[in-house]
Structures are given as C-alpha cells and as structure tokens.
C-alpha cells in the first residue's frame, strides 16, 4: 500500500509536467488546429539556456524567470518569422515545418552543448515535506505546476487580453472586426506556450537529466495527455496530464516494468483515437448542414 501511494504521488509530480506541456500543445492547437511537434524540443532548448545561466553563476530563481522570459520571446519570434509565412499553407506543409523545428532545435542544442548528459539542479530544499512518499523536488514540481496553471487560468479567464486571445483563436474574422490584432494574439499564444514549456523543461530536467533528447518521451506523454483530455480543452489536458503521469508510474512499477513505460503513452494515444477521438472532456464536433 505504501509503495502504491508512493508511485501515485511520484506520478502526480511527473504528471504535472506532462500537464504543462499538454497545455502548451492545446494552446497552439486551439489557434492553429495543429499539434506543434517541436514543443518539447523548444522546452529542452530553453532548459539548456537556464543551465548556462546557472553555470555562469546566476541564482536559480533569477535564471528561472529570465529563462521563462527568453522562452516567451523565442515563441513569439518563431511564430512571427517561421510560422506566419506558412499560415495558409496546406496542413502537411505546416507539419513538415514543425518537424523541421524539432530536428533543428535538437541538433543545434547537441552542437552547442554536446550530447553528453548533464545534471540540472533542483531549487527545492533537501528536507522532506511529505515524509518518505515524495522527494522535495517532486513536491516542488507539483507546486510549481499548480501555480503556473492557476496563473494561466486567471489570465485567460479574467483579463481582457486573455479574452482577446481566446476570441482570436476561435473566430479570427470576427476578432479583426472588433479591432483585435489577431496576428499578434497568435504570436502571444506561441510565446505563452513556449514559456509554459520552459517551466516544464526546468522541472523535469532534475528527474530525467539534461540531454538533447530528454523531451522526446515527455512530449509523447503530453500528447497522450492532451488527447485523453480532449485536444481542444485546456482543463481536460491538465486532468489528462496528471492521469497519464499516475497511470504511467503505477503501471511501470507494478505491471509492465519501467522499460516498457513509454508504450503506455502509445497505447493511450491509439486507444483514445480509436474509441473516443474527441477525448474525455473534448468537444464533439457536429456540423450542421
């Protein structure tokens, strides 16, 4: 029983990270109706930036917030420079751009920092808050995730800019007619998604270690989480993230073993697409004719 509780709590910690990245995927999806395959690599790249800053002697939290800011600007820049020109291109062309971004970020990082695995510090103190069930970093990661999610919720729900972002994603034409600069809203969405991804990267790096391929598995779990929750539902993606984290951890520990854990994500992706393509909280698209 103790072991199970431990696995569930640890699953919540990684689940929070999946939830953040899933949320980033959903934010881009709502605006473009496409899944940004490079989301994980963008997060990985910004985590390396944080590593450089910390190694240069910057205190952890200063590096943390500076990295979030840099990630935001990077997201805005990518949307403006790379995504904007293919805005009206066919789906496959955009998917190719996303995959290219994934490969470019992966290779550039490997080129700059080498593929050697590095350790990444955790900012959380060594004392155990929840006894033997949860490591301080896991507890801290859950807390950080919840803070990020609460901030995002408040931003989208209660600010005029958040409302404009939601409007621009839903109905760009009507948004322009009320004076919303839709292009900038999309760029802002990319910036926010990249910033959330950066937080996820910095929280997962102490667990999985820093290397250019660290987000490959995480992105798969996040994608499964977004699908489980419904790819167009931010709240669903968050619930999905925590659920996938717990499921992966418990199954990995007791049923299929750690080596086969990643297949949980793949089974979930295929299962959800087969049985309930709109996810458990997603909107079912019915077209009236």
């Amino acid at each position, binding site marked *: 029983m103790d072991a199970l509780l431990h696995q569930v709590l640890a699953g919540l910690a990684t689940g929070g990270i999946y939830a953040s990245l899933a949320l980033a995927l959903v934010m881009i999806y709502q605006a473009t109706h496409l899944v940004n395959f490079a989301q994980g690599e963008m997060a990985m790249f910004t985590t390396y930036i944080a590593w450089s800053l910390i190694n240069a002697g910057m205190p952890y939290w200063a590096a943390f917030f500076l990295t979030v800011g840099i990630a935001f600007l990077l997201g805005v820049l990518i949307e403006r420079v790379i995504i904007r020109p293919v805005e009206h291109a066919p789906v496959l062309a955009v998917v190719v751009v996303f995959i290219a971004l994934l490969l470019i970020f992966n290779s550039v990082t490997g080129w700059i920092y080498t593929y050697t695995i590095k350790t990444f510090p955790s900012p959380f103190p060594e004392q155990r808050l929840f006894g033997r069930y949860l490591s301080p970093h896991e507890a801290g990661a859950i807390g950080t995730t919840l803070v990020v999610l609460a901030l995002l919720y408040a931003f989208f729900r209660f600010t*005029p800019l958040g*409302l*404009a972002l*939601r*409007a621009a994603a*839903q*109905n760009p*034409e*009507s*948004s*322009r*007619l*009320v*004076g*919303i*600069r*839709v292009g900038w809203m999309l760029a802002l969405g990319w910036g926010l998604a990249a910033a959330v991804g950066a937080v996820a990267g910095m929280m997962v790096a102490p667990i999985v270690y820093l290397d250019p391929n660290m987000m490959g598995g995480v992105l798969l779990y996040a994608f499964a989480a977004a699908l489980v929750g419904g790819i167009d539902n931010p709240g669903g993606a968050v619930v999905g993230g925590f659920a996938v984290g717990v499921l992966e951890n418990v199954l990995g520990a007791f049923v299929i073993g750690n080596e086969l854990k990643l297949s949980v994500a793949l089974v979930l992706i295929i299962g959800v697409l087969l049985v309930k393509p709109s996810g458990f909280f997603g909107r079912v698209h019915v077209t009236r004719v």
Partner: protein
Amino acid sequence: MTALLQLSELKAAYGATRVLHGIDFAMAERSITALLGANGAGKTTTLRAICGMVRVEGEVHFAGERIDGRKTEDIARLGIAHVPDGRGTFLHLTTEENLQLGAYTRRDRDAVERDLDRVYTYFPRLRERRKQQAGTLSGGEQQMLAVSRALMLAPKLMLLDEPSFGLAPLVVRELFGILRTINAESGVSMLLVEQNAAMALELADHACVIETGRVVLSGAAETLKRDDAVRRSYLGH
C-alpha cells in the same frame, strides 16, 4: 459638406471572378443608406471591401481619411463596426464576453459600462442570457448580439449585412425599430444591405441599387420607393 464614407471606382475580385466593377457612392454623417440588389450583385462584397476583408482597387475614404488597403483591425479601430453576414458570433464565449470583445479597443471604462447597460436596455433578452454560451442563443438573439457587439465599439458607422436574415417578421420589425432609435439617439450612421427591400427603404433615408457590381441607381429612399423599376424588381408591386 464632406461625406462620412466615400467609395470611388471600387473594384474587387475573388480570384479571377470580378465581383465589383467600380462602385461609386457617398453617404452623409448620421444617415442610413440601404444597398439594394439581387443575390450576387456585390452588396456583401461592398461591405467586406470597406472593411479591408477583400483586396480592392479604387479608393475608400472614411471621415476624411483614405482607408483602402488598411488592415481590418485598423479600420475597426477608426470606428467602423461590421455586423457580418452569418452574425460572426463567438460561439464558445458567453453573451457578455461577446459584448466585452466589442469594446476591446476602448479605454473609457465608464462609458463602456454605460454602453453595456444601454444595449441591455435595447435588448433585455441579452441581459437574461448574459452568462449563457452565445452558441446556444437563437438566431434572432444572435442577431441582436451581433448588432450589440458592433454598438459596443462606439462606432461612427455601422455596416449591417442582412440583419433580417432568418428572423421572424415580428423580430425583424423590433430590430429595425431599435436600429432607428440607435441612429436617432447616438447619430451612428448605418450602411444597410438587405434582401427585404421594403423594410430597408422604410428605415433608410438614402438608397443605392447595385446590379452586377455597379451602382445603377441612387437617391433618396422616398424617391426610390416610387421608382417603377425598383418597385417591379425589389418591392414586388
């Protein structure tokens, strides 16, 4: 007197299909002008051209400024509110959020509050449904919402694309009555595209008849109402 809106030699095309062949007309401040014409004559395209939603040749002047070639969002910020064909509702947002979006570019918070109150007075049904998802409103309610959202912009000019479309005659009468009140109370000019020519000519003080992308007839609404060709083609008597 300078015109509020002036279109000169306005041409527009969808791909290779030319829809507007040179539209010319002007409308005065505080006036209501109706655009009449058969399906496919180019009425909707004229409105979309004014808003920068289609690429155009020719010139559009609004309140002394040349606006053709500008972005839709910048034209909206000048005070042109478009009630589009199909109503343009933000279906997944609440009624009140739809209205807040209408006032997105405004910074005068107190005046926005007053305007919100005013549209709720015009359309009490919207107040009842303020927390409801706009996609669940009836067609008539969504049309009221579209007009209200445009009003929240505090516009100088409203472009109304078939506001009567799909509405019961009683609802249309109510809506047109409110449009008349809005025009009288706040001096908002209106450019109205309508299939229902009889209703449109009753509301409007001016009218233009468009045929295959050109203005073929224009004048005071009273005059056009008695014009034989207009009566035969658009009024059915």
